[in-house]
């Protein structure tokens, strides 16, 4: 049986009206922003299921955008996120779509950069303001952001995993859970590592210097 904190019951402190469609949406946007590189010039939100049906009435669009702009679910500026995005010159688009067999409250967020690159992140709001990121650039993942989480993409070669975990070990960081997967043998692979303590920028730099590592991001 799960134990509930008093603040699971009286909480979260949030901007209404819905913990799943507003607070969870803001968290999804924020976590996606942390996974994607900064400096994106436009964002497209592909809304699925209940998100697609009821997003305006729940302010899901405003909340997602607020999260992408770095706001927390309790930030009162959430209401005016469209104005803030316009002032920053960020291009924004919302598309109602069908992403297939996904949780009803799912969004695919696509970040576009000036050099033509894009980052695609899919996640769901699973109730009570909790979220899970399920796809990053085609990699299937499961990131709940309850713990500091490291997301590393690398070429599928021997020794890369141990070099990454070795770097964490030297930084006295304990790994809580770890998941390694790849698109196919010898191709691009990814690691999702949840840790017990925050991962510093220096450690990320060190991981990026490992041969075969393509990218490394941390959500602390």
């Amino acid at each position: 049986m799960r134990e509930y904190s008093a603040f699971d019951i009286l909480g979260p402190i949030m901007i209404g009206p819905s913990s799943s469609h507003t607070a969870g949406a803001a968290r999804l946007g924020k976590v996606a922003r942390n996974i994607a590189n900064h400096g994106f010039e436009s964002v497209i939100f592909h809304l699925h299921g209940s998100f697609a049906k009821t997003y305006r009435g729940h302010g899901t669009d405003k909340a997602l955008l607020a999260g992408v702009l770095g706001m927390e679910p309790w930030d009162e500026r959430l209401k005016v996120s469209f104005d803030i995005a316009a002032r920053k010159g960020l291009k924004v688009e919302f598309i109602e779509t069908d992403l297939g067999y996904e949780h009803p409250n799912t969004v695919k967020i696509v970040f576009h950069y000036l050099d033509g690159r894009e980052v695609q992140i899919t996640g769901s709001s699973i109730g009570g303001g909790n979220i899970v990121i399920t796809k990053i650039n085609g990699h299937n993942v499961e990131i709940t952001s309850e713990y500091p989480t490291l997301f590393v993409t690398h070429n599928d070669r021997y020794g890369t995993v141990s070099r990454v975990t070795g770097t964490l070990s030297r930084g006295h960081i304990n790994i809580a859970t770890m998941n390694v997967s790849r698109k196919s043998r010898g191709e691009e692979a990814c690691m999702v590592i949840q840790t017990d303590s925050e991962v510093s920028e220096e450690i990320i730099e060190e991981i990026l210097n490992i041969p075969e590592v393509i990218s490394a991001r941390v959500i602390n």
Partner: protein
Amino acid sequence: MYNNGHELLQIAKEKELSLSAVVIEAECKLSNKSKEEVIGEMQDVLKVMLEAAEYGLKNDVKSVGGLIGGDAKKVARSTKTLCGTMINKVMARALSCAEVNASMGRIVAAPTAGSCGILPATIITAAEILDVDEDGMINALFTAAGIGQIIAKKGTLAGAEGGCQVECGAASAMAAAAIVEMAGGPPETSLNAGAIAIKNIMGLVCDPIAGLVESPCAKRNASGAVNAMISADLALANVKSVVPFDEVIDAMFKVGRALPVELRETAMGGLATTPTGIKIKNQIYREENQ
């Protein structure tokens, strides 16, 4: 930690503690924090509740979907009342929280966003009546959280699983137990009040018009808050719930599971599919698609 009402009462009895003291002790242990830290966190919760319960009394609020707003102010200013100004105050505060929530203002999910008005309205109004200070309100919030923990552990607090009874009903039970403690009632009386509050709304369906947390949610917050007040008064008068607290909770979950999916937050039944409900939904979606 306590898994049901019976265990909660046992711990309170053995240690000779109030329910709030038991909940605070459990919270310190669970989160590995000091008493000062968890009380500090609850002060933040209370602060947001006080603001949300006050805002709609003075300001014209308009919900995102446009179905509600301004009712808290009307009730707060109304001079025509049969039940007395105290009941109007409770309802106005509950409506204020619901309106703030529906207009993308800041609230505390208690236990959910849709039922966020019941606990603030009752605790604040009871504190006024009983002349209880902030510390007393903080304690009451911990008692409420304890009741909510038990309901969550035994079943669910999600309307999609159990209907409105597990959201507004749970909030009512939490509030009733909490204000009994504020009024000096012993732990058994708090649980009696909680049991009565749930019995009064058992079976309440979740049927939001257009799927929005607006109508009938706001008014159910008002009636849920009043339900908490009268359930507390019944218990304080020493009226006992014939069926004990834990059995009432279990019965509520059984009723919840028996509810068809149309009446569990899907907006496919109840008020949502009345001619008026459908008309409103069509209007909102037409606007969305333009």
